[in-house]
């Protein structure tokens, strides 16, 4: 009896030991990954569900509080076809020559990407997703052509956000990479520049927005003599749609180029010098070294930092909110700002619906970005 029980215990113990031995490798590996996943899950899954629910409902103030009514897709219908259409999608018109050019060039790029995917041989599901992605891109192009570059057209918050994101992120990447490259060239005094270039990022976005409001003031700001000189003395940002947009893009670029700068700087510094020296011995010039040795080495980090900046840039709110209040009209109103304005007036349903539209838009763009670049990276 005793021994039988002992055997049973020992057997169980050895079985448990074997189970752990089988899985110890897996367990150790899970131990690396799980803590991070759990923290993200804890904070983000619940809000994701709740805001999805909110986007399908309407908040009503009633006596002694509020109630939430489920109204299905009405919030989205309102955005796409109802009273908020002109703010969300914009006002359409016949495209100008430039508009047709944009639609044509973008459409050609989409078709080219699709053809390449077809040639590359993808699964049926992959093909369906690519077609859907291309159709989505086509709709966005059509929207840009018919609102931004159109006679009598006015871009809605979607198009305005897209303009902010693509122009600002491109500028920031170019600046960040250029500056990071220059401060890794063994120049005396480069430490000074490295710290100075980080400064804009260290200011809280609200602060940057107020600072740029000071700087952009054509009457009391420091650039007033320049404004007077170029004949903009009576100019106010509330009059010019493109002026206001440029002001927002300049502010965003000023603030976030350091983000690109520091990440690319670390990537450049982590690069091994042996291949560079070998290239010099082989007689490569500076551009060739940069193009064929440095760029491939930092490409993964560069792609990632663009992706992160892309996602962050889609959430732009403080600059347009404080610098231009989204104006003139809705010329600088981003999706997040529109969502914030609805939210401030307690229209939580519409606010969440706009946020979810942003989520869908960014998810499609991120997936397209990752898939296009993965195929590209795989070819190299």
């Amino acid at each position, binding site marked *: 009896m005793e021994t039988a029980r002992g055997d049973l215990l020992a057997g169980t113990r050895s079985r448990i030991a074997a189970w752990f031995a089988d899985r110890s490798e897996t367990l150790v590996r899970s131990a690396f990954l799980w803590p*991070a996943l759990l923290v*993200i899950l804890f904070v983000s899954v619940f809000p994701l*569900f709740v805001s999805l629910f909110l986007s399908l409902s309407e908040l009503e103030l009633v006596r002694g509080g509020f109630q939430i009514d489920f109204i299905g897709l009405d919030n989205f219908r309102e955005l796409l076809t109802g009273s908020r259409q002109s703010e969300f999608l914009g006002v359409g018109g016949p495209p100008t020559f430039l508009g047709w050019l944009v639609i044509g060039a973008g459409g050609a790029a989409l078709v080219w990407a699709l053809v390449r995917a077809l040639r590359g041989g993808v699964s049926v599901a992959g093909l369906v997703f690519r077609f859907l992605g291309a159709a989505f891109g086509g709709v966005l192009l059509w929207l840009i052509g018919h609102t931004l570059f159109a006679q009598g057209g006015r871009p809605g918050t979607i198009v305005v956000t897209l303009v902010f994101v693509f122009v600002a992120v491109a500028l920031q990447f170019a600046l960040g990479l250029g500056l990071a490259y220059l401060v890794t060239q063994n120049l005396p005094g480069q430490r000074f520049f490295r710290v100075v270039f980080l400064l804009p990022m260290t200011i809280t976005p*609200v602060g940057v927005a*107020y600072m740029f409001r000071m700087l952009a003031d054509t009457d009391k700001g*420091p650039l007033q003599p320049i404004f007077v000189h170029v004949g903009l003395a009576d100019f106010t940002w509330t009059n010019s749609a493109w002026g206001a947009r440029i002001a927002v893009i300049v502010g965003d670029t000023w603030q976030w180029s350091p983000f690109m700068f520091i990440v690319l700087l*670390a990537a450049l510094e*982590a690069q091994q010098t042996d291949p560079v020296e070998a290239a010099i011995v082989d007689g490569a010039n500076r551009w060739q070294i940069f193009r064929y040795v440095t760029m491939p080495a930092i490409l993964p980090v560069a792609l990632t930092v663009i992706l992160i900046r892309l996602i962050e840039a889609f959430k732009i709110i403080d600059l347009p909110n404080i610098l231009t209040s989204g104006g003139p009209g809705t010329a600088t109103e981003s999706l997040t700002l529109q969502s914030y304005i609805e939210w401030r007036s307690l229209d939580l349903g519409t606010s969440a619906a706009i946020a979810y539209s942003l989520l869908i838009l960014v998810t499609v763009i*991120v997936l397209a970005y990752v898939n296009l670049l993965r195929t590209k990276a795989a070819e190299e």
Partner: protein
Amino acid sequence: MNPLARRSVLDLSPGGKLVAYLILGFWSLVVLFPLYWLAITSLKLPIQVNAGPKYIPFVDFEPSLHAWRYIFVDLRNDTLRPYTNSVVVTLASSTLALVLGSAAAYALARFRYRPKVGTIGLFVAFLGLGAVAVVLGVPFPLALVAALACFFLLTRAVSRRFKRVMTNRDIALWIISQRILPPVAVVIPIYVLFQNLGLLDTRTALVITYTAANLPIVVWLMRDYFNTIPLELEEAAAVDGASAFRIVRLVTLPLAIPGLVATFLLVVVFAWNEYLLALFLSSADSQTMPLTVAAQNATRGPQWWYMSVLIMIMIVPVIVLAVALERRISRGLLVGAVKA
């Protein structure tokens, strides 16, 4: 000594150096001028700010310390408290995010995971159901236990049905996708979440939120930095019989220092400057500095002078940190580490 002289084949030519200095100098000017404007605005009286542009103290206008006195003497504790909060919350959340995120990033860069889609979907679905139940008034522990129990009961059946697995890339994409939703959309649910946990207006709530918000950035950046570290070094250590943790600690981490430092600076900046979540999760006790800055836009219009002081004292610690850590973002460790 001529700073333009060429000392190594890797250096730029003298002409190239001149151009480089011109570009760097120009951008420094672009960066520093707004900051200079902030500094002198903090020394101006309201009437001087409104009188039009005045550039040089003592020449164009008589500087005054009234704004500094207001922030440091009149407000004293109302400045000190948010400042301490900001420092504590930022350091705690950034360190946590860096540790957890780097571990996950290392795992995604080196190991292969094949989690089943069905199992994950089930887990998330029950977590969501549990959360909804909590909102509807079910006690928090009960909901958690019930959700986990249902999950474990059904997990086998589901994983037998759905054989699709996720790859590391899918996991990484899921992680970064958690940053897409704008803060406006998540503040209310997060508020409700921490209200249920009784953590409103505590630093803990801010630390948890910022850690979660910064993790995706850490995971993605560190994954790439780890990928640039040659596998040969770790393999050599493994051949010598080192354990996984030892390899990470003694081989990988020292080589990843430039990336770690850059990433740390980034998450510090994000946590230090975060505004909207702090606005909701803190009221008095755990208020952070960005709220104090925004509060200077009073009913009488923006108080530029106070705002300038606050922004300037907010920049100082980040600069100190950047100066202290910048040295670590430099070349050297990998030079000649791997002889091909």
